[in-house]
């Protein structure tokens, strides 16, 4: 029974100047890229979007909120690569700043949801008994709400805006993560080394953190990447409905809400580019997540 975290590949040492641990990390990244060309492609998209979002101030040619009434609904040109919208705002700049909003929402939701899910799932599996039964009951009820319905209900109560949107999308993601990690943790709980650890007199905290959590890292990471994409899609949908991020914050879904349909025949670029940004980013995360699943979970390979 191997208990090594499935992320670490053992690679024969090759003469190199890099220290031991770094080499294995770079090597495993390289192996990942070679074995998973689609996943690498997805990773590249994600990295480009992350760079765009992080350095929006320096990359974006215009301010995302500056109106230019002399250049409304301009088609793509050298001055405005992706054209301008009905208020004369530069589309490219808005998409670059929108990447920031999307990634903030995506990562916040995914990280908070999967961490809470891990606490609930692993805790529930480890302690078992009544706690497990009641917790699963509650999570089942939350799972009965489709994601967007739950998010809309939360928005209906707490209102719109970035923070409420993050809250609204995180809540329905938590039980989805908890359920998967619980089943992984249940399998690990039955493994003899957990009994051994208990026999050694280790406390609950040590057994959970040192022995159980490292073993659910693989499904945890897979869920995390999947959640980022789902959260970005959900945010875009909410914003498109006018119930998510509010103006003047640049967000992709919001860009499609304003004039996309109204100007469909006269200025189609308003409708095309923001949607393309959403689709590409989520596509990138899905490809990367799929490849990660294949790499981390050999049982699922080739499926």
């Amino acid at each position, binding site marked *: 029974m191997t208990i090594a975290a499935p992320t670490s590949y053992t690679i024969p040492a090759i003469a190199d100047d890099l220290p031991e641990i770094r080499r294995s990390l770079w090597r495993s990244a390289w192996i990942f890229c070679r074995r998973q060309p689609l996943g690498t492609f997805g990773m590249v998209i994600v990295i480009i979007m992350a760079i765009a979002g992080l350095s929006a101030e320096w990359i974006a040619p215009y301010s995302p909120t500056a109106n230019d009434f002399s250049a409304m609904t301009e088609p793509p040109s050298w001055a405005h690569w992706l054209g301008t919208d009905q208020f004369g705002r530069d589309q490219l700049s808005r998409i670059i700043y929108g990447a920031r909003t999307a990634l903030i929402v995506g990562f916040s939701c995914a990280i908070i949801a999967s961490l809470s899910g891990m606490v609930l799932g692993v805790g529930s599996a480890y302690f078992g008994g009544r706690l497990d039964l009641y917790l699963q009951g509650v999570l089942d*009820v939350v799972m*009965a709400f489709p994601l967007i319905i739950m998010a*809309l209900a939360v928005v209906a109560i707490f209102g719109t805006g970035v923070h409420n949107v993050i809250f609204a999308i995180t809540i329905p993601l938590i039980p989805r993560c908890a359920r998967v990690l619980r089943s992984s943790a249940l399998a690990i709980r039955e493994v003899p080394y957990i009994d051994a650890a208990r026999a050694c007199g280790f406390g609950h905290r040590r057994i959970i953190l040192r022995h159980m959590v490292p073993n659910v890292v693989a499904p945890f990471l897979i869920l995390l990447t999947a959640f980022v994409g789902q959260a970005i899609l959900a945010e875009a949908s909410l914003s498109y*409905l006018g119930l998510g991020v509010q103006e003047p914050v640049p967000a992709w879904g919001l860009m499609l809400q304003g004039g996309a*349909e109204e100007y469909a*025949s006269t200025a189609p670029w308003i409708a095309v580019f923001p*949607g393309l940004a959403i689709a590409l980013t989520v596509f990138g995360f899905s*490809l990367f997540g*799929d490849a990660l699943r294949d790499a981390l979970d050999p049982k699922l390979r080739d*499926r």
Partner: protein
Amino acid sequence: MYRYIIKRILLVIPTLLGAAALVFLLMRLIPGDICVVRLGSGGGTFDERAVAACHAQLGLDRPMVLQFVDFVWGFVRGDFGISMWSGKPVLTEIAARFPVSLEIAIMAVVVATIIAIPLGTLSALKQNSPIDFVIRVVSIAGLATPSFWLGILFILAILNISQSAFGAPWMPPIDYVPIWQDPLRNLSMVVFPALTVGYRTSAVTMRMTRSAMLEVLREDYIRTARAKGLVEHLIINRHALKNALLPVVTLIGIEAAFLIGGLVVTEQVFNLNGIGRLFVQSVQNQDYTMTQALVMLVVAAFVLTNTVVDLLYAWLDPRIRYG
């Protein structure tokens, strides 16, 4: 088997009660007094007596537990209250909008199945070939494409194509006519939203079909079938597909959630007066009675679909024996 069926059906009750409790609590979490919000929304002035009257009318002056019992009992009797926005009974409003959404949902599932099962099977049969690669990319793209954007692209295409073909832009009708009255008009209205919602559903189904098929194709009995010289298409159709489609059936239940989510957004894009649009409007208008009724209905529909699918699965797969 019968014990399993009864157990599974009884399991619906606690889930629905739990969901009702959650909705009930969520609606009580609304910051501020709902009556103040309601009376103040018109911009007029109001006094304490009006607030108290409103409390009495909504039953908010009674104990929480009684309110909850009333709430659940209302749902059981099919009495969802009065819409706070339009003043009409919630049930009438929902009933008027239901047929459009139902038709789109059914058509989307049909479209998705027609696309997904052949392509998923093909993808599995030609694993790691260029065809497989293309199908996989198409299905991942289906998961990544926001349905409202796909809808907008459809509108864009319809407008531009009709403009160049007839010289005047044409848009699908937005007022609902039942299919038995004017099939052409009905279909021209429903087909594009159904394609929009269906693409996503087909993407998920395609992936599931592919992975289930790959698993089945490695089974011993497939090798046996090949060894005895059975024709390939019989192996695929009679032996492999039959078993591979079992998990796909389950998936349709899970897909119901995505379908509803897709409907909410797609109806907005195509300006269709369905349940999804009603839901968005009720959230925008802070129509809490409507919102809670719709959330409960969606959850009930989702839970019931899942139950039916579970039972179907137990019935279809004789290998599964339930205690």
